[in-house]
């Protein structure tokens, strides 16, 4: 799905069709039909355990790490069925980057963290040192981390503050030029200042990447996203432009949740 992706003129970055998912015998997603627009930020809200992470993780197919997960239905990323038998998992994960709830930089240097994906997906000859330096600088500048870490690129990624770690985790996705960034509560481990900084960063990445962000924070969803999806018990209840959903929710359950009646 490398180059042909560019030829598909779909407005939607992610489309799912009757997506259902089971953990063993427990069904976590029920016939999820979603069309997520390209180049905007879509937030995913809903009470704890409603399947937000599960949905997100199936778009990157990282759910398959667990041997007991079964998925039915269809997921298309830029018009390509990512569960098609001839699809390469590695390519799916190149196109669809994932940011986790708890910052999880690898226990290697900051520089190597940024180059990790780049190295894995690089098929040609080993890039020169200058090439790598440029990639590292670009990625770290994009996430507004360059100035803080440019003198200690050889330090471990795990030695940074949580906010910096989360930025690093975003930075390391960029060198392979993904189209979709999935973020599962990326700010929940951060303090208010860190949250603000990372939110601002996510807002800046808008347009260049399609971003789906899970959040428990209504204010964040409202501030930081253009469309909003509300899920409940493994089903999609509502998918609207954020402003509409928060002002005039169509479903009673959505209204209840937004007003804090689910907790």
């Amino acid at each position: 799905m490398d180059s042909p992706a560019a030829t598909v003129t779909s407005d939607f970055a992610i489309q799912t069709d009757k997506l259902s998912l089971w953990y063993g015998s427990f069904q976590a997603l029920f016939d999820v039909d979603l069309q997520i627009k390209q180049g905007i930020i879509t937030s995913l809200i809903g009470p704890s355990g409603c399947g937000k992470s599960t949905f997100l993780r199936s778009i990157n197919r990282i759910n398959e790490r667990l041997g007991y997960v079964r998925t039915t239905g269809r997921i298309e990323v830029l018009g390509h069925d990512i569960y098609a038998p001839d699809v390469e998992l590695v390519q799916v994960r190149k196109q669809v980057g994932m940011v986790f709830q708890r910052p999880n930089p690898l226990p290697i240097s900051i520089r190597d963290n940024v180059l990790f994906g780049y190295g894995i997906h690089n098929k040609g000859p080993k890039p020169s040192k200058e090439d790598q330096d440029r990639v590292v600088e670009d990625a770290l500048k994009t996430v507004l981390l360059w100035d803080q870490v440019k003198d200690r690129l050889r330090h471990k990624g795990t030695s940074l503050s949580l906010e910096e770690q989360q930025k690093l985790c975003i930075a390391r996705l960029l060198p392979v030029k993904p189209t979709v960034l999935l973020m599962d509560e990326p700010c929940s481990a951060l303090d208010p200042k860190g949250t603000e900084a990372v939110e601002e960063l996510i807002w800046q990445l808008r347009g260049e990447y399609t971003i789906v962000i899970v959040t428990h924070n209504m204010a964040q969803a409202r501030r930081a996203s253009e469309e909003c999806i509300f899920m409940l018990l493994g089903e999609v209840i509502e998918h609207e432009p954020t402003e509409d959903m928060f002002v005039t929710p169509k479903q009673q359950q959505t209204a209840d949740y937004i007003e804090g009646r689910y907790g």
Partner: protein
Amino acid sequence: MRNGGDKPGGPKAGPGANWDRLGASWFIDKGVQVLVFVGGTSAIIFVVGIFVFITREGWPFIRDTLDFAEFFGSPRWNPTSDHNPTYGALALIVGTASVTGLAMLIAIPFSLGAAIYIAEFAQGRTREVLKVLVEMLAAIPSVVWGFIGLTVMNPLIIDMFNVPVGLTVLNSGLILGLMAAPIMTTIAEDALKAVPDGYREAAEAMGATKLQVVFKVVLPAAKNGLVAAVLLGVGRGFGETMAVLMASGHSVNLPTSVFDSVRALTATIAAELGETAHGSDHYRVLFTLGIFLFIVTFIINLLADIFVRGVRKKG
């Protein structure tokens, strides 16, 4: 600590029975505490005690007779000679080092490979069966290994390589390697298991294959623990006695190839100590060998410990 013995009469049982039972549990509690304390401190006391004992037995020799240049530089080990005893331990040190070295050459790839397979690739039943097998291998007594070296490997080596003797560096190195591998596998596997799963998940989510995850993420992250596993294996090889005594040929010799017989430090002590007169120079030089062994293994274990701790400090 629960101190129920003071309170007469529990809520449910009759007062008399309750007195007795609470009293017993209180004593058991106390008793176990004392036992655990004694167990914990006795380990330290034993180690120190052993060191003091072997030092006391060896010290007069080190002080009066020992010539360091001879001890570490001469291969002539002849402590039983009546008029001109020599105490060159070089051949014994080289013997031990060569056997241990070969053993590690065999055991390191073996055990690291096994640990990686068990920790990262094997699933469910396969993993359980393999772990039990490794533990069973670790439980084989060393005299059995020595016996295998003597009766199986010996003729095999003679046949295969067309050499006159099969009790050699090769034989004892192989045996020792097989002996050390299970322990090293277990420790290395623990080190791999200690790598947080989040690292693997992060790398896989970026598109890393299983092999890339292992080599680029898990192994570097577990590096210190793996080094510790190897060091403990080396320590095990250094200190092993019976199997080496049986499989090495036990002849004082500076080996020039793996087909030479050698004699190990430990084997020398085990074989000769019984024949010496208590307090004689020969008796004391054997204790000097013991002190040397003790110090070397102590350093190896200390290094291993430092490496294991290093994991936690650097995060």
